């Protein structure tokens, strides 16, 4: 983003901003514009309607007798009142808790959540002391989510940015259709993890199930344990010094650094040998088929 100041960016229209940032000229919206190009700008970014919260202002919410809708509405009310740290108690496996939070917030969930927990978030730091169900942090755009126990299947599906960390083991199809960001799993992951992955990084400290990285377009998967089998077009690649440095930094950050270091990790990337990577014109393909 050399040569363009924040002030100048503010004056520009959306289209001008995209061009100035060196991205495609198609109309894009949202924070993803900043995430790829300037981490500092990402830090400073807030949606115009985002409530001004104070992280030192903390409150607790007993969700035992509340419905999911009531809990999520109450979180928004508390944020408007300026609370920057919200603790949810007794979630008892409720679905869709903390979804769609698009601004900065420290959300602590003391217990386990059900399906679609903290999906579609863009910015909050979430800590869950229990387990999460299927599709946790689906379509997550920014922020961090740290889960202390296990997670269900389709963990971080279609994730676009931020850090999603599960210290235990996760189910199948982890990071399916991942488009960005980082998924870190302290334990094992199930079958078809990284299926159709498009961008981003996934780290599995334990073992990976069958068909890892099946039909992945791009992105990188690092596995510390054994891989039961690689999926179609997924290939192993050399673990470079840059990879090791990045792995060390990320795993240390979340307290998941293995005792024996990161040299034993296997790196999996897209082989890009599938038909969609060839340079044939559609008419030529027809002739071949």
């Amino acid at each position, binding site marked *: 983003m050399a040569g363009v100041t924040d002030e100048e960016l503010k004056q520009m229209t959306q289209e001008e901003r995209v061009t100035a940032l060196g991205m495609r000229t198609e109309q894009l919206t949202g924070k993803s514009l900043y995430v790829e190009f300037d981490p500092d700008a990402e830090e400073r970014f807030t949606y115009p309607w985002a409530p001004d919260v104070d992280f030192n202002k903390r409150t607790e919410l007993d969700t035992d007798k509340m419905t999911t809708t009531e809990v999520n509405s109450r979180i928004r009310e508390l944020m408007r009142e300026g609370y920057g740290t919200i603790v949810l108690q*007794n979630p008892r496996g409720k679905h869709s808790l903390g979804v769609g939070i698009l601004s900065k917030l420290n959300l602590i969930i003391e217990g386990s959540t059900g399906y679609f927990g903290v999906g579609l978030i863009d910015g909050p730091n979430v800590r869950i002391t229990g387990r999460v169900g299927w599709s946790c942090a689906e379509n997550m755009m920014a922020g961090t989510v740290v889960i202390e126990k*296990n997670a269900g299947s389709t963990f971080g599906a279609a994730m676009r940015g931020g850090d999603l960390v599960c210290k235990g083991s*996760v189910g199948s199809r982890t990071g399916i259709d991942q488009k960005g960001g980082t998924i870190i799993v302290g334990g094992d992951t199930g079958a078809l993890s990284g299926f159709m992955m498009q961008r981003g990084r996934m780290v599995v400290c334990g073992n990976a199930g069958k068909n890892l990285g099946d039909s992945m377009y791009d992105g990188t998967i690092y596995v510390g344990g054994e891989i039961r089998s690689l999926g179609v077009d997924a290939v192993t690649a050399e673990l470079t010094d840059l990879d090791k440095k990045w792995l060390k930094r990320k795993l240390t950050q979340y307290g998941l650094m293995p005792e024996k270091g990161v040299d034993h990790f296997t790196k999996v990337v897209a082989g890009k040998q599938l038909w969609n990577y060839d340079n044939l014109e559609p008419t030529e393909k027809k002739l071949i088929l």
Partner: protein
Amino acid sequence: MCGIAGLIHKGKSANVGSEMTAMLQALKHRGPDSTGYAVYGEPKEGEFIMRLKVAEAEDRARGHSVHKLIADRIASVDEILAEHDVTVKSKDAATEYALRYVLSDIDDTGKLAERIEETDGVEILSFGNGLELIKDLGDATVVSNQYGLNEFKGTHGIGHTRMATESDVDIKSAHPYWAFPYNDVSVVHNGQITNYWIMRRQMERKGHRFMSNCDSELLAVYTAHNLANGVSLEDSLRQSIEEIDGVFTYLVATKDQLGMAKDTMAAKPLVLYESDDLIAMASEEVAIRAILPQEIDTTDPYDEEVRVWQA
């Protein structure tokens, strides 16, 4: 998107009826059409419990004559029992069309079951020493109150909340399925079986009967066939992952065991809680939390995983 649940207490009897009701009620959103239970009480030597239904939703279209039809069918069942010199220790009817018999002095339960089902409109829901299979339209609370399940004590049970997708909303398509004619074996299933018709024809050629067009019934018949041929429950579950196509997670209960199997894609959910004295599993954690409100550790079984627990 059906919901399944199961629990097994190790070495002791507990309030399985109310526990299953709490779990299934928490899964109501996964299937509000019908609810079913297969719960296992203390077996009594020489005593058999037979649960059957004598009418279906379509029979109601017959108007007032349905009452006579029901009475005739029950009379026919009683006649068959008398023919076979079976002692009827008790006979209760929770609803007009659902009956529970306690029987003794039976030579061959399989043959008797086959004979009873020759009566048009009569379907045996379960037969066994400990198994009581109850299923009806409505959510768990409705069915539990209707059949007085809140007081039921036993060691283990499985249950199902059904969202009808490929067959009708009626009792014959509701789960669990009894593995006819194998005593005390029941099955609940979440998923779709894609080679249902091929497998069903194979089973029919081997002489097994199907009472509905519901793909889940195949799992009950398949399990019954394997168990009758001396295959262990665990081996039958493993074999099913190879032989049955589709997406499925299913639970099987026998007199003293509870087993689970998950397909090769792990496409259907199951959350598992294990402790020294209780094992509980359900499609969603919220069901397990309905009976265990304290903080617990749960896991997701992986693809092709098979587990069997002993009561």
